[in-house]
């Protein structure tokens, strides 16, 4: 029986090539999204699963509580936490601590080499995690404070074919380091993608033994059979022991290693990966459903072609279930063919993906099983409704030639088409709206002048010679301004506790902090609403003068802030000016309180404003000055406006994903429309023939065939608009600064679908309308 079904299925596929192609291609496109997501999720789930003791490794998370803020979960803890836990609790077998360093430059043989992120850690890293040393002894490699362990690729980049062991690398911030080990590269599916390891040097990190300073990540390895819950129950006592009266402000718990990637949404600074994956999967699933709807529509519309077969099978004794099985089988076969197509494309795309994103994705049997499951699901979903409709035919009726599905089937088909189109319009409008929001953020007046600004990270030498260098830079005609600050806009991550007159000594108050020089305020075009800028005329300005922003003045309830007593880091001075609020961070968040102080010792970023002409020439001149003062560090710069664009990259990716999804959805929906209209043109060919014989024009016929679809597109647009409006409003909740929603994206989104769908429909309709009527009538 199965082979009989298979034969009929294959012969039907080959006989109606256009419809088969539409069905298979729609299913393939719909399944491609799901299959792609499946590969990605499998890759994500494999994150850090290569550590042999992974099920016993936990990250220590601290919950910091203060009266004015909701509790903050952070993986950043103080240095002695790991050693103390190991000391106090027999359950803890080992620990290792990570101090991340994001970017550095090293010199070897007089050449500067840029190195990406690295970790200062304990020698126990090789006992806790399963990183493998190729050369060197894991027990001793990180014992000396000036030792360094490189990954294979990093060693190759620096030394080429030379033997790396024992070679000396010079780091401007930390001095000379001797290579004591080479380790395998950290797998791509690890959250710890460091390029080299250094020991935690107590001299460099002099805060490492203070309980009060947080700043490193601690992983603990529990003994076999140890109960993490039981251990956590002892942590309140731990806080009490080491933090005395502050114990109620700090609490600890253990996060299993396998939860770090997916279940860290509540942890400060970490992305809600699980939520994101769910959202993308839901999107992929919706597109698959759209593709399945195509199959349902086309199969039920064309049911008449199979009616006689169904009738005869029933006459010869087939039960309804026989037929349901047969038609489900056919849809599953088409879904499997579609799956094979997608697998071929994926096989071709994976190497490209590896090259572009450094993601060595691979197809294995688990994924193949998953693909088959997706194909089965798509086949069953797509085939279920047609199978029910076709198997319900009464043999007598179909043998008499009455096989139309009737008005109910037609209504359902219309509902399905409207759903598909509405979803397409919804996605397009969302994509347009998100990109509008991104553009809005980029064009938004941030309250400071970001054009033509070059920022250069400062070194100790540059900092110490700042005034001289500033004068030299200003002598270059194409440089119109020079200033320095502790960090650049968008990158302020320094939070300080501040003091002010009238503060309740019990309370602690925190705000963002930036150290600036005299020229910073005019350089960036910042506006003072009260008081004055820092001035060289006032000897007390450096160190004791403070400029705050309006947000801070408002928080403190100061209408007139100038002259009020204010200080940070234990010192006390006065507020000399209040700046009009400007967006020093991402526009996603509201403007937070900010303190500006004149303290040249904190400078970390040099900002230059240059004229538009001959940018490269200007930068060459700047590099010339740089290299006269700084021999140990290469000259590096970025453009501020580009940095700001980078800040919105995640939102841009969101808009890109919505755009790609809407393209797929529109494409699939239009293929379905193409199938339906060509079928209806075929079915009505006799009617069209008669109408043409009686004098109908091509336009009349065109309207006759496409009117119904135009109405359906219209209904879809009307349904999609409020949905998109609602969804985008939800999305906007994430932003402190929101674009006016406006009508344009809605009208544009509707028009795009209308034009694409209408041209699809008209193409077929025109073909039918200009056909020779004699042809269609002859065969009737």
């Amino acid at each position, binding site marked *: *029986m199965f082979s*009989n079904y298979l*034969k*009929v299925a294959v*012969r*039907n596929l080959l*006989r109606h090539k256009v419809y088969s192609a539409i069905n298979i291609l729609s299913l393939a496109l719909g399944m491609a999204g799901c299959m792609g997501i499946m590969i990605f999720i499998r890759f994500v789930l494999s994150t850090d699963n290569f550590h042999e003791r992974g099920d016993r490794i936990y990250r220590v998370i601290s919950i910091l509580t203060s009266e004015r803020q909701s509790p903050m979960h952070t993986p950043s803890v103080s240095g002695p936490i790991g050693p103390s836990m190991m000391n106090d609790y027999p359950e803890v077998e080992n620990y290792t601590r990570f101090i991340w360093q994001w970017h550095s430059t090293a010199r070897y043989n007089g050449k500067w080499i840029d190195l990406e992120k690295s970790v200062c850690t304990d020698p126990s890293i090789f006992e806790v995690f399963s990183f493998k040393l190729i050369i060197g002894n894991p027990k001793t490699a990180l014992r000396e404070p000036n030792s360094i362990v490189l990954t294979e690729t990093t060693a190759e980049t620096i030394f080429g074919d030379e033997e790396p062991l024992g070679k000396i690398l010079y780091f401007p911030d930390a001095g000379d380091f001797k290579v004591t080990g080479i380790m395998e590269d950290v797998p791509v599916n690890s959250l710890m993608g460091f390029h080299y390891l250094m020991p935690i040097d107590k001299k460099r990190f002099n805060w490492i033994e203070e309980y009060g300073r947080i700043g490193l990540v601690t992983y603990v390895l529990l003994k076999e059979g140890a109960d993490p819950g039981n251990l956590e129950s002892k942590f309140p006592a731990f806080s009490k022991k080491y933090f005395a009266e502050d114990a109620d402000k700090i609490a600890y718990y253990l996060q299993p290693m396998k939860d770090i990637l997916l279940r860290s949404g509540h942890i400060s600074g970490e992305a809600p990966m699980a939520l994101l994956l769910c959202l993308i999967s839901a999107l992929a699933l919706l597109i698959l459903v759209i593709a399945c709807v195509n199959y349902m529509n086309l199969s039920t519309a064309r049911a008449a072609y199979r009616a*006689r*077969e169904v*009738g*005869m*099978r*029933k*006459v*010869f*004794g*087939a*039960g*309804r279930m*026989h037929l349901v099985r047969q038609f489900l089988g056919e849809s599953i076969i088409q879904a499997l063919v579609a799956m094979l197509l997608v697998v071929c494309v994926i096989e071709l795309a994976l190497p490209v993906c590896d090259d572009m994103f450094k993601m060595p994705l691979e197809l294995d049997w688990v994924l193949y099983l998953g693909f088959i499951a997706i194909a089965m699901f798509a086949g069953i979903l797509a085939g279920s409704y047609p199978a029910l409709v076709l198997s319900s035919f009464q*043999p*007598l009726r179909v*043998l008499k030639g009455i096989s139309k599905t009737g008005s109910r089937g037609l209504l359902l088909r219309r509902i399905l088409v409207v759903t598909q189109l509405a979803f397409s319009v919804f996605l397009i409008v969302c994509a347009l709206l998100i990109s509008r929001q991104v553009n809005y953020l980029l064009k938004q007046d941030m309250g400071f002048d970001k054009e033509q600004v070059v920022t250069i990270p400062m070194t100790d030498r540059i900092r110490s010679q700042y005034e001289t260098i500033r004068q030299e830079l200003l002598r270059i005609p194409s440089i119109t301004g020079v200033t320095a600050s502790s960090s650049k806009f968008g990158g302020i991550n320094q939070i300080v506790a501040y003091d002010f007159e009238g503060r309740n000594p019990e309370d602690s108050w925190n705000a963002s902090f930036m150290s600036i020089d005299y020229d910073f305020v005019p350089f960036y075009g910042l506006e003072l609403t009260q008081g004055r800028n820092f001035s060289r005329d006032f000897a007390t300005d450096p160190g004791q003068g403070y400029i705050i922003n309006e947000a801070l003045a408002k928080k403190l309830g100061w209408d007139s802030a100038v002259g009020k007593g204010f200080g940070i880091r234990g010192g006390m001075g006065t507020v000399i000016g209040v700046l009009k609020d400007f967006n020093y961070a991402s526009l996603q968040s509201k403007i937070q309180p900010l303190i500006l102080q004149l303290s040249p010792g904190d400078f970390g970023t040099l900002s230059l404003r240059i004229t538009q002409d001959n940018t490269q020439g200007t930068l060459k001149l700047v590099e010339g000055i740089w290299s006269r003062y700084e021999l140990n560090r290469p000259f590096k710069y970025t453009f501020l406006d580009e940095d700001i664009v980078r800040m919105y990259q995640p939102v841009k990716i969101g808009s890109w994903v919505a755009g790609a999804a809407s393209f797929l959805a529109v494409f699939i929906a239009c293929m379905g429309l193409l199938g339906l209209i060509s079928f209806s043109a075929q079915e009505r060919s006799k009617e069209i023939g008669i109408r043409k014989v009686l004098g109908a024009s091509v336009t009349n016929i065109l309207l006759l065939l496409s009117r119904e679809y135009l109405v359906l597109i219209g209904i879809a647009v009307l349904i999609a608009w409020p949905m998109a409006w609602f969804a985008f409003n939800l999305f906007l909740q994430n932003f402190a600064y929101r674009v006016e929603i406006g009508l344009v994206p809605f009208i544009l989104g509707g028009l795009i679908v209308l034009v694409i769908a209408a041209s699809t429909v008209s193409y077929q309709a025109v073909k039918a309308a200009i056909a020779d009527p004699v042809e269609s009538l002859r065969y009737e």
Partner: protein
Amino acid sequence: MIKTVDLCKVYTTEEVETTALNNVNVEVSQGEFVAVMGPSGCGKSTLLNLLGLLDQPTSGQLHLNGLEVSRYSERQRAALRKASLGFVFQSFNLIDELTVYENVELPLLYLRTKAGERRKRVGEVLDQMEITHRRNHFPQQLSGGQQQRVAVARAVISKPKLILADEPTGNLDSAHGDEVMSLLLNLNQSGTTIVMVTHSVHYAEYAHRTVHLLDGRVVTENVREVLGV
């Protein structure tokens, strides 16, 4: 073998009620060859569809092999159809996607006959119908007469006790029509009961007797006797 008692079939649409059969009482014995005749719309095909369990009567009784089957469910009727009935239609109703061999084999698949047995029986029947040389062709590659021979082969493959033929020669020229009628006659002579609807007096003469219908009623039975033929 067949006995109908006051068999009625009324088709109801939203606006019209049409009585297709009105208190029809017919009996067909085992081994008989009965022709059903009458003008278009008299209810011939309706009667045949009721006898073939393709449709349910509005009222009255239908006895098949001593069983009253008029109220059987679709499932029971399907079971009975595949076990003991064979059908031949005017428009052949072969499945376009299946070859001659596969079309003939189809009823055996639903009877779950073993593959070896299927091959043997399909081979025999194709030989009997003299279309073995066309076994791998598709229906649209055959002449009308050949298609109807395939349809007859498909009707007899399950060795049914009763074959219901609805104008089996209606779409055929006289040479092919004669061929098909002699096939049916052969089957009848070997013991199969046949009820055949026809417009043709010529082909009705192949039957043992003829039932005449007019406006849904039996007007005469055994035309040959009435006319003194």
